[in-house]
């Protein structure tokens, strides 16, 4: 987290020095700051910040792509007269443990069209999901666990050690 703050500070410094607070210039400053931190990383305490940044960017693009695909599938179904829906309510065993992890996972599952998180079991081991296209329940479970959950947990768990 401190690295992220440093990077923000460097981006602001860049914007101040070039006298231009446009979003584009701030992003350029952030990229340059990232480069500067990367060069001196051995002088600083070790951190997985440099990997994390790419994981966050990767997650955002992965997610936007999924969002678009799922939306197109729903659009296709709405427009054609035949129904292609294969809805199910499935139980997904969770690897996510903390409140934050479960909330984030439920949020991303709900945000993707085609899947909607319904509820969490009282013992917090299982999430019930309504899926619109699930000809194969196990395939969908695998897809969610390997896709969103794995990426999300990798993202959230690594950062905890450097918080504070």
């Amino acid at each position, binding site marked *: 987290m401190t690295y992220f703050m440093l990077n923000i500070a460097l981006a602001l410094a860049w914007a101040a020095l070039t006298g231009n607070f*446009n*979003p584009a210039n701030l992003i350029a400053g952030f990229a340059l700051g990232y480069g500067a931190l990367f060069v001196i990383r051995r002088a600083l305490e070790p951190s997985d910040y440099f990997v994390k940044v790419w994981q966050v960017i990767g997650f955002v693009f992965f997610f936007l792509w999924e*969002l*678009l695909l*799922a*939306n197109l599938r*729903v*659009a296709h179904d*709405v*427009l054609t007269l035949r*129904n292609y*829906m*294969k*809805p*199910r*309510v*499935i*139980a997904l*065993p969770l690897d996510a443990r903390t409140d934050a992890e479960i909330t984030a996972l*439920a*949020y991303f599952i*709900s*945000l*993707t*069209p*085609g899947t*909607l*998180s*319904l*509820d*969490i*079991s*009282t*013992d*917090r*081991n*299982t999430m*019930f999901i*309504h899926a*619109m296209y*699930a*000809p194969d*329940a196990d395939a969908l479970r695998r897809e969610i666990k390997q896709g969103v959950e794995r990426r999300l947990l990798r993202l959230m768990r690594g950062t905890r050690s450097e918080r504070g």
Partner: protein
Amino acid sequence: MAESISLFLLLLGAVFMLLAAIGLVRMPDVLMRLHSSTKSATLGVGLIMLGVALFFNDFAIGVRALAIVVFMFFTAPVAAHMIGRAAYLSGVPLWEGTLSDEMRGHYDPKTHALAGEAQSPDSLSSGEPE
């Protein structure tokens, strides 16, 4: 050039919102109506705001458009989840074409406990999970 891109985005956003509206009419049960309405509409608003930001190409308007998109993306799934959960738990019937319902029998309306997968639904009545 920027104007045509912006027009294209506005049109695409409007199309997604139209699809959401059609889906609301055509889908067979509550949960699937939620699928089509909340999320396509979210994407629609996102695309329209992107188009607006590109059209005006102004920092103040861009930031406001971004804020609208962020709030839409934060609130829409929460609302969808809560409506879906309320509908399911209050016993709104699912579409008859639903292939399987692994949540059936897991919920105890008296204690509001929801059994996980490992436990059998019967263990709820003995008040085991908490």
